[in-house]
């Protein structure tokens, strides 16, 4: 394809992404190297409906003067990346020196918010992603073989986990898995343990979050594979059959290679989305048991005082994390792009 043709074809997408994603990323990266100015604190008396109290406040005029000097804030380099709420390099080296063996060091590490979040995020990503792909693939194969008249309803039902808005969907599921809910009660009956509660233990909470993750994103993998199956060459399949290939061999040697580009795509998207897991943690009120980088950003931006630089630094770390995670898939894609003669 000629360079100029390529340019005009991708131009609309490129403009949109530059304006609404690339520019904000530049500003976020910049923000992450600056902290707020020193705030000049003064003691004041505050009065209200409940009487007066001695308190502190920010001296606006003095702070404004600092602000006008350096409008971006105070340059701090990578200090925010390395502070305790992010990579915590200082705390790690202290823990390494004072640690009493590896398990003790591990405990200190898990006490730091970034590493605690990473522990859950990585477990979640590496369990949910393959399960989603496998489940989605088998659903696609199964749906593809049902009678034509039943296909529509089957597809609709299979898509339900994705269609129903998580806002309400997770509210309902959160209730269902409660110890008094229908699923929670079912689990207690299955485990013959009347005191079993999914929400009370960290391990059960992790399992529930992962189960929900697979359930919620399997329809995505299913739809992609299903539409991919529509273009499988039936001639090749028949030829393979005449050659005596068994059913499994046909799937293995014809269908799976055909779906491979789509699998790469599903894997990329799923790895990325699972690494940024956020919604289920909030919906299931799971933050006592599991956190993620996206949750940390939400926490920084949702508090009464917003921590913009901290959120920016965590966002940059998320992007770096995604880049590392996806690098094997990207290397593969890169090879596919070998220039043609």
């Amino acid at each position: 394809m000629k360079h100029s043709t390529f340019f005009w074809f991708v131009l609309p997408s490129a403009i949109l992404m530059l304006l609404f994603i690339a520019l904000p990323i530049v500003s976020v990266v910049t923000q992450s190297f600056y902290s707020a100015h020193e705030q000049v604190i003064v003691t004041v008396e505050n009065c209200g409906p409940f009487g007066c109290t001695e308190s502190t406040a920010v001296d606006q005029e003095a702070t404004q003067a600092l602000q006008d000097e350096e409008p971006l804030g105070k340059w701090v380099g990578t200090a925010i990346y390395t502070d305790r709420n992010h990579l915590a390099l200082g705390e790690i080296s202290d823990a390494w020196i004072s640690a009493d063996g590896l398990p003790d060091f591990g405990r200190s590490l898990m006490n730091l918010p970034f590493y605690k979040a990473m522990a859950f995020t990585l477990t979640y990503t590496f369990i949910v992603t393959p399960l989603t792909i496998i489940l989605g693939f088998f659903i696609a194969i199964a749906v593809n073989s049902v009678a034509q008249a039943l296909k529509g309803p089957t597809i609709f039902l299979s898509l339900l986990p994705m269609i129903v808005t998580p806002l309400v969907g997770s509210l309902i599921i959160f209730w269902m898995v409660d110890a008094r809910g229908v699923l929670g009660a079912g689990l207690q009956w299955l485990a013959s343990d009347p005191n079993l509660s999914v929400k009370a233990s960290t391990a059960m909470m992790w399992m529930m979050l992962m189960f929900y993750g697979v359930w919620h994103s399997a329809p995505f993998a299913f739809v992609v594979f299903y539409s991919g199956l529509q273009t499988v060459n039936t001639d090749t399949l028949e030829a393979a059959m005449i050659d005596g290939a068994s059913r499994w061999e046909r799937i293995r040697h014809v269908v799976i290679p055909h779906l491979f580009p789509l699998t790469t795509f599903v894997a990329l998207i799923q790895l990325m989305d699972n690494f940024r897991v956020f919604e289920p943690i909030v919906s299931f009120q799971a933050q006592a048991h599991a956190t993620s980088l996206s949750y940390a950003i939400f926490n920084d931006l949702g508090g009464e005082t917003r921590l913009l630089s901290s959120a920016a630094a965590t966002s940059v770390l998320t992007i770096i994390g995604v880049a590392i995670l996806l690098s094997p898939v990207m290397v593969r894609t890169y090879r596919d792009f070998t220039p043609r003669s």
Partner: protein
Amino acid sequence: MTMMKSLVMGTAMAVLTSTTAMAAGHGCDISEGRVNIVGNEFPAIQSVAAAALECASGVEAESNLTADHQKINLAGMQGNPAEYTSAIVANSSIVALINEDVVRPLDDLVAMYGQDIPARQLITIDGKVMAVAFMANAQHLVYRKDVLEQIGMDVPTSYEEVLAAAEKIRAEGIMENPVGGAYAAGWNLAEEFVNMYLGTGGQFFEPGTANVSINNAQGVEALEMMKALTEYMNPDYLTHDSNATSAEWEAGNVALMNMWGSRTGPLMDTEGSEEVVYSNTVAGGPLTVGDSGNAASTLWWDGWTIAKNISDEDAAATFQALAHATSPALLNDETMEQAVWLMDGFEPQPLNEGVLATVAAGANPYPMLPFMGLLHTSLGDNIADYLQGNESAEQTLADIEAAYTAAAKEQGFLQ
């Protein structure tokens, strides 16, 4: 804003009247300026906003009440002119607006249009009126009269008595987990610690500075009391926010809990629970902890502010509309029950007794400090580790201090 400017007041009113009960009250004479209110979404604020918009019906008036108000109010007031002419805030959230210098002092407006506003409604910081409060809220004990009669104990006034009563209720097999509380990790859990720590007489910061100081005997005492209470709570307590705690109450699973005054109304009405539950639900006073005698609760107000980056006409229009909306004109049979209103003419309802008792007990207002929000977030992130038995109280308090210090450095409060 072009679209909003073109918004005929008629349509704005049509939308609003259909959703919210209107306070009967005219006599507003606003002929110029612009009103646009951002705030949280619950019935009392909806009533105030509706009354303000009705009052400002002669000019362009709008409101945006949403649970995400804290995420958009700052950006919406930073522009020039600001999108929002007023933000409805609480004593915890006003500091974010004051820190960024987006709200204006109201002294001149009070002198001109607000002579009728009683002094107790004016929030002054360093002598300057920064907001006008209209309602109060606090957490206090809510108990089941019938259950306490059954075990033959008086209404608890301290957390120690709550523990004793809970033990007895459990021992007599009436309820398995008789204590409730909004202990969901995050904001709710941090709020419970703030209450408890103030109850022990603790100070959050070294006076006059942003240096946190909670890793002390009072901090440990507060955490230990919280942990003792959780022994009598539903094992899922770390996922129970105030909605879920209310649901537990209505299901009749809980007999004693520390709950928001604003939540007691729905617990006492006839919907959502059995007769035995709602007719025996009573609002008690605040609880104390240890022998300090302080109420382990914080007092809250909700009030309105006026944006700085707007014209004087807009500020005057907004001030007049909101002053009218938070005057005795707002009060009627329907609005009377929605909150503990601070204006004259409010008649306390039985369900408001808990909040009034908390005020009378001299509980502390929630600290209106520029850096309190940072500490609140750090508390919410770390306390669950202790309650789950993962680490010692001292370690948790040290973690909180470290997390706060890192955040406060980033915000420039600490060097």
